[in-house]
């Protein structure tokens, strides 16, 4: 996990280029790079895509760019260069006010807002983590032990990372609670029939085919694909049947 500006430099990309690719204003990217604000997940995904890296590779809140690197990372004319040209601002609403009026109307400059830390994990993320934990037969305490962080202190990035980790573990470890569910809609896959045919081919048990037009044929499977089945009939003839021509076929267990 690295600072956004470091990754951008590694990819030899300017802020303007990243802005154009990610569709995020350059000004906002500067703020992210300077650590003035954390990158929300939606923008993080767009930036990761534009930089060809994983979301998890980018820190949500970058460390500020070191002063000695500033010029290298950010050209001096950055604002004018990175942002699209805008029409000149309309004249001031109060023409009586002199142009040289001090900023903030002579008042003291307001203090700069402290950079916001990563956002707290969403309720939906927490609920999702708890539901995945159930598949491992963990209660909340066990889940927190596993993560090393109480759920209440989890931020969005960490929650996202743990969701990914648990989902991968469900696939690899197949915990007891995780039933292998048939994908219901859209309509599953066509693998079952192919497995059946593979078994028939391996065991060389013959199948009796009934075709769409009522013809019948018996043969041993010697090859098949998603759209056809090739059989050898008892008299040694090799026949390839288009599946669309088949009504059904039967075989002994």
């Amino acid at each position, binding site marked *: 996990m690295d600072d956004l500006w470091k990754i951008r430099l590694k990819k030899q990309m300017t802020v303007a280029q990243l802005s154009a690719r990610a569709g995020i204003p350059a000004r906002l990217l500067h703020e992210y790079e300077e650590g003035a604000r954390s990158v929300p997940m939606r923008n993080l995904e767009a930036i990761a895509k534009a930089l060809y890296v994983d979301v998890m590779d980018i820190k949500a809140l970058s460390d500020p760019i070191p002063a000695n690197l500033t010029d290298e990372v950010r050209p001096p004319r950055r604002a004018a260069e990175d942002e699209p040209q805008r029409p000149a601002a309309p004249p001031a609403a109060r023409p009586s006010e002199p142009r040289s009026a001090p900023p903030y109307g002579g008042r003291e400059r307001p203090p700069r807002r402290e950079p916001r830390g990563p956002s707290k994990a969403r309720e939906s993320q927490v609920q999702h983590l708890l539901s995945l934990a159930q598949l491992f037969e963990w209660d909340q305490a066990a889940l927190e032990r596993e993560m090393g962080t109480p759920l209440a202190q989890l931020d969005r990035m960490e929650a996202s990372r743990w969701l990914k980790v648990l989902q991968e573990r469900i696939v690899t470890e197949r915990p007891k609670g995780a039933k292998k569910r048939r994908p*219901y*809609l859209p*309509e*599953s896959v066509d693998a079952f029939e192919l497995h059946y045919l593979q078994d028939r081919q391996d065991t060389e048990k013959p199948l009796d085919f009934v075709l769409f037009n009522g013809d019948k044929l018996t043969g041993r499977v010697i090859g098949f694909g998603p759209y056809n089945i090739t059989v050898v009939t008892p008299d040694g003839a090799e026949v390839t049947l288009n599946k669309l021509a088949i*009504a059904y076929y039967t075989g002994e267990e």
Partner: protein
Amino acid sequence: MSLGDYLRYLRAVHGGESTQDIATKLGLPSPWPINEIEQRYRDCGDNELVARLAEYYGVPVEEMQWRRRRSRKALTAFLSEAQDNAHTIVLVLRNEERLIGTVEWFDMGAILLKPLDDEKRDIMVQRHIVDDWEMA
């Protein structure tokens, strides 16, 4: 057989014309609505289009509407329920043959039926030949 499968079948037996050709003949600006009916697993298409297609192919519009209710998704839902509850089902094929048995499994292309009268045999029914279905 779903309406989509049936339309593809009708198109094939009418010389295999393209959906673009049919759309042009029906005065549709695009073949997209016909493609949608043919390709989607769920019920789609509006009544007017279905009626115009029925007229074009010279088949009763009632049959078209009947098939709309027998989409691939509807068959999937039926098979799933039958498999989960070990129900005995009847599959009525396009050749009017009736197969009775329990569902071992099914996928996108076929259904493995265990017939009631011969449990030592499997019947692999191709989905495209299934015309209708019901619980036994």
